[in-house]
Structures are given as C-alpha cells and as structure tokens.
C-alpha cells in the first residue's frame, strides 16, 4: 500500500501514457473518439442537409451517393442526422461525465480528508442517491419537465456522482495517512491546499476512469430515453432515430442500422478508453 501511494504522480502519468498507447484497442478507440468529436464540432460543415429538415429527398430511399445513410419516412437525410446526433450524444455524455467527475471528486475528497461526521453525512447522502433506479428517475423527470438534452445530461451526471465519490473517498481516506500528506499538513497547509496539491493528483486517475465509464452509460441512457420517445425533438438524436425506425424495420433497414451502429461504436470506444485509462493509472500494471 505504502509503495503505491508514494508513487510520484507525474512519473506514473508518463509511464501510463506509454502503457495506454501500447494497448491497441484503447489506441484505436481513442482515435475513433477524437474523430467523433471532430465530426460533432464540424457537423454543419460535414452534414449536407439540416438534420431535422423534412423532405430534403424523397422519403424512405436506401443509402445512395446523395443520401449516404438513406432517408427516413419524412424525407430527412440519415447521414446528416447521424452527424448532428453525435453532438447530442457527446453533449449528454460530456456534461454528465464532467458533473460526475467534478462533483464526485469534490464530495469524495471532502469526505475522505475530513472524515468523521462530515464524511458520514456526505456518504449517506451519496448512498441515498445510489439506490435510485437511474432509468426510472430519468423517465419521471422527462415526463414531468418535458424532454431536454441539458436537463437529461445534468441529472444523469448527478446520478453518477455516487460511483465517483465513493471511489475517490476511499482513495482519499488512504492518502490521508500517507507520509507526504501528513508532511503537507505539518507544513501548515490548509485542507484545501493539501487536497489540491497532494491528494487530487493521487485520485485523479480513478476519478477519470470511473467518470469516462459514466460518459458511456449516460449516452446509452439518453438513447434509451429517446427510444421510448422522451427526447428533445428539436435536436437530432440517435435514440430517437432508432425509435422512429421500428415501424420500418422490414422495409427500411438503414433507418435502424446506422444510428444503432453509431451508438454501439461510441459507447464501446469510450468503454475501451476507460479501460485503457484504468490500466494506465494502475501502478501495478505501470510498474511492470
């Protein structure tokens, strides 16, 4: 245990990066994700049509050179919708992941370093959130407040806080006993300084790994909600495309295949990147 926490964080990161890129799957996945991010950012340049505009081409035509991914029942271009759908997916995943990461670290560090009643209280609150069934909470929220990408993302992030917070707290609890943290306190530093200078670098890897898994699950949940019809109809969404495709499964396969594949590829990529991150920040593997 002692050898683990005394690993100098910076060396660990550079070693880790090498380890990460040496894993083929993680490398490819990371490349795919970068590509998806670029597509999302440059969506208006890439997409040939506005994603929601109906009647840009005849309805229900199969993939062709003018409509790479075919068109849906209202004559909307499938390719444009997939491209813009990446924005929605990454927005939801990104916001949810960031909220889970930031709030999780905050609560985890606070509880872990302070200990005692503060810790007890925080962890009970976190546990209370943890037992909520995510999907049903989201269904209730979407049906009460109406579907909105941002609200969905924010709530998904908050619901993911427990998994990050609990792991960070466990690490922080262990770090609190480490010599260099004790030394930090001995130098007269405040909790805040110690947390930032000495504890944060130690828990960052864990938090990043767990949060990136939450990114993937947020994207999946959003797709699931959209599939059930709880989606913001004013933005393109892969889940909503899948929902719409159900009626046309036997006549227009392209309406289901492309959004389905998009969701699968992005979620799988994020998962293998998260795994790569886990390997990279795991000192046992890095020091091998």
């Amino acid at each position: 245990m002692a050898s683990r926490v005394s690993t100098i964080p910076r060396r660990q990161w550079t070693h880790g990066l090498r380890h990460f890129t040496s894993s083929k799957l993680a490398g490819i996945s990371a490349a795919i994700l970068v590509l998806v991010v670029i597509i999302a950012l440059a969506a208006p340049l890439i997409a040939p049509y506005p994603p929601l505009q109906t009647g840009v081409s005849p309805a229900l035509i199969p993939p062709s050179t003018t409509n790479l991914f075919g068109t849906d029942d209202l004559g909307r271009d499938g390719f444009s919708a997939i491209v813009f759908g990446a924005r929605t997916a990454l927005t939801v995943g990104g916001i949810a992941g960031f909220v889970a990461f930031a709030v999780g670290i905050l609560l985890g560090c606070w509880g872990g370093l302070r200990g005692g009643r503060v810790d007890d209280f925080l962890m009970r609150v976190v546990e209370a959130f943890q037992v909520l069934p995510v999907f049903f909470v989201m269904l209730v929220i979407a049906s009460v407040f109406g579907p909105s990408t941002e609200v969905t993302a924010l709530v998904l992030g908050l619901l993911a806080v427990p998994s990050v917070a609990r792991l960070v707290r466990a690490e922080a609890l262990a770090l609190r006993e480490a010599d260099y943290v004790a030394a930090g306190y001995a130098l007269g530093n405040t909790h805040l300084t110690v947390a930032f200078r000495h504890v944060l670098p130690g828990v960052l890897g864990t938090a990043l790994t767990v949060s990136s898994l939450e990114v993937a699950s947020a994207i999946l949940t959003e797709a699931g909600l959209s599939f059930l019809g709880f989606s913001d109809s004013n933005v393109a969404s892969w889940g909503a495309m899948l929902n719409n495709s159900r009626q046309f499964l036997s006549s227009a396969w392209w309406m289901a295949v492309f959004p389905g594949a998009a969701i699968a590829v992005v979620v799988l990529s994020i998962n293998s990147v998260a795994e790569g991150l886990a390997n990279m920040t795991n000192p046992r593997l890095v020091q091998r």
Partner: protein
Amino acid sequence: MSDAGRRILTLIVGSLLFGSIAMAQGGGGTLRIGLNSEPITLNPAITNNQIDVFVSAKVYEGLIYVDEDMNPVPGLARSWEVSDDGLTITLQLQQGVRWHDGVPFTSADVKFSLEDVVKTKHPLGPSQLAVLESVETPDDETAILHLSGPSIFFASPYLALNASTAPIIPKHLFEGTDIATNPVSSNPVGTGPFRFEEWVRGSHIVLVRNDDYWAAGLPLLDQVVYLVIPDASTRLLAFENGEIDYLPFGVPYSALGRLGARPDVDVIRFRDTRYQIHGLYFNVRNEPFSNPLVRQAIAHAIDKQAIVDNVTFGYDRVANSIQQSGSVFYNPGVPTYDLDLTTAAALLDQAGLTPGANGIRFETVFTVDLGAGETALKTAELLRDQLAKVGIALKIVPLERATFLQTVYQNYDFEVATFYGTMGPDPSVGSKWFVTPSAPASFVNPTGYSNPKIDDLLGEFAVQTDQNRRRELFNEAQDILLTDLPYIPIREDSWPVLVSSRFTGVATDMFAGKADRLLNAARR
C-alpha cells in the same frame, strides 16, 4: 415452461386447431381477431372501454342500432314509436328471443338493464340517460320509455339505446347481485349472434355461433376468436403470417403501404370515424395568438396535403372543418385557407410581426400530445419546416399524455398544442371543445376562445331535436369557428384496419364497429 412460453404454445396450438376447423367447415369459418389488450370486463352495461365493448357486443345487444348513414335500424327493438311531445318512446321488442341459457328475453330485462344498471353504473349512463324517468312494461314484448325532457340521445338515431351505451343484460342472472363481481360479467350470457365459450386470460377469448339467433340465417361465421397480443409489432407480424385475420386497433399507417399492396390483405377505413379530427389549437389568451390575423396566417402556411401524404402515407383526408366531411353535419361552405405563403407573410406583416435580421418573425412552442399516437410528433416535425418558411420558429415539446393534460387543459400553459378531437357519434358530444368551459377539464376547450354566439348556437344544438334546424345551427357554428380559427383542422382520421381477404363483411363502421355484431362476416 415459462408463463410466456405456455401462452405462445397455447396460441400456436389454438390457431392450428381453429385453422383446421375453419378449413373443414368452409363457408362461415373462424374469424381470428387481434386485440391490443385484455378486456377488463365482458359486461358492456358497466364499461365504456373500447376493447370490452368490442368483444362483448357480439354477445349482448342493444335495442336500436345505427347504420353507416346514421339511420336507426332494429336491434332487440323491432319497431318504435315516439309520442308527439317526444317524451314517450314505445318499443316493440323482437319476438321469441331467448338468452343463451334458454330463458326467454322479455321487457323486464329492458327495464332492469336501463333503470337499474346502465343509468347508474355505465360510465355514460348518468349523462346520456339523464332524462330517462322510467320504463313501463305493459307486456313481455313492449317497453315504454318515459322521459322527463327532450334529449338528443333519445332523438333519432337514438344513441342512448344502441349496443355500446345501453346493452340489455339478463335480469334473471344479475338481479340482486353485485353487477361487477357477478361471474356472469366475465362469462357473458346474452341474446347476441355469438355465445360465449371461454376466456383464457392473457391468451384468448372464444365465441361460437348462436344457432338460435333471432335474425334467421345469421350470423354467417361459426366462431370468433380474440387473440390478445399487447405488442404492436408482434401483432402485426402475426397478421402478416396469417395467424390473425382481422386487426381492428392500432394499425400503424407505416404498415399500410406494405400490407395494402398484398393481394391477400384488405385495408379498410372505417367509414364513419368521421368524428375524429387531427389538427392544432392556439392559446388565444396571449400574444401573438390573441390576434386572429396570426392564426389565419398560420392556416395559410400549413400544407395539409403534405402532412396527409407524409404522416399517413396518403391514407387520410385533408380536414377543412372541425367535423369530418362524411358527416351529415359537415358544412361544405366553411371558409378554407389555401396554402399561400405570400398571403401568410402579408398577414403577419399586418399583425406587426416583421422578420428580424435572421428572418425570424417570432418563436413559439408547439406542445405535442404523445398520447395522440405516432402521427402527432411527425405532424409537428413537418409543421416546424412549413412554418419556418414564413419566419415562424417552432420549438417542439412532446409531452406524455398525463403531463399534456395537466399542462394544457389544467394550467393552460401552452402556445400551440395538438388537437386530437372527436365530435362523437353526434357533434353535440364534441361541442364541448368549442364552447366556453365552466372549469378546466380534459378534452374541453382549453384555448381561451370564448364566443357567446358559439355558446348559444351549440347550446341550442345540444337540445334541439329537429335535425334540419340542428344542421343549420352547426353549419353556422362551423362558419364562425373557421373564421375565428381558435382551432386549425389538418386531417380527418380514417382509422385504417387490416382484414385478411379470405373474409368478407368484417369491418364496416367504427361507431357501430365498436358495437358491431359481425352479422354478415363470412369466409369468401
């Protein structure tokens, strides 16, 4: 074996069995009907649930039926006579009718059903039978209805006496019992063309031909089997595979093109769902929709035909009024609004809504009722593009039914919303959409549109019994409504159903279809 597995096995064995029976007998045969949900009760006297009525109306009958042209035709009453003041209706009942258990049917059953059961226990009873004071039974074949005042439900075509509002149930089995829990409510004993055979919950219901039916030679079918298949795509698949002959509910428009092209499938539009109109309404309390010019501009900007073509694959018709065009109450001279973007833009300019730098005149929210079916959201998506052409930015907010009802009908917290309105078998039922409501309630006028003239016209319409005068009143109401435009009708729902072309005479009429007896259905 799992429950589901057992169900599927029952279904397969069942359909094989019934299939072979039908093959062996030919002629009448077995009609297999796909249901989207299990009936709650098979006693139509205490329910208004579509599925309950649809199944039990083959077993129980009403006194007077309504044909496709809204004329009264005999049911358990073979003839009727109305007094000059309209307050006494004398019914002569069919002779020699027996309940399925052999007991003779008499006027006492009519008195019991109407007075003791329907009037108090049927969901529509207290309102539709409000004026029914008593039923006099001078002899077994005569029932005299005494009314306290005029009511459109007791004027021709006697909607209060049809099978779905006032089914006649056996007094000798129900009297003195709790109607809902009486076992006969799930093992019905009626006078209808089909006898109840069995109800295996979660799987199927079997009805067999009543050989002693009072109408000689009818029904033609030997057997009717209802298969309960809740999942829409499974149900559709079962129909495509020939395991079901008739799909009366929940057929998606998207399946029509594909299945309609098959020679062994008939797509039938219930001729008189002339009562359902899809469109939108405005909240006229607030800017900008408080200005009729804005509403007229939107009417000119909507391409109704494109919506019909894209959303319903051309199966529906464009709606011009709040009443379907097949109805005798439709006003063909109602003001119409052609697709005309120039006029729309001019009207918006006139209303002071000029385009901003980005070409947008104003933004508004379209609250979509997801409970109105798959078509509601698609309609909204097309409208977003159509209105964008005249500089109106439409933001779509789809709400699930319960939230929609709360938001729109209780809180009036909307700007534009989905209209999915039924006028009912008689437009007096649906007029609540347009008159000034006394309190917020679901499916009454939520728009804030309040016109004393409309209130007067439709108020008189509801109690007037002279049909010509009623037509005049409703025509004038349609003129005013389509001029003021608190509602914009877009399309007339046609309620398409799928029937295997092995059968004929299956689906006729939805209003009657709900209470249809399948008298003339047969194998080809």
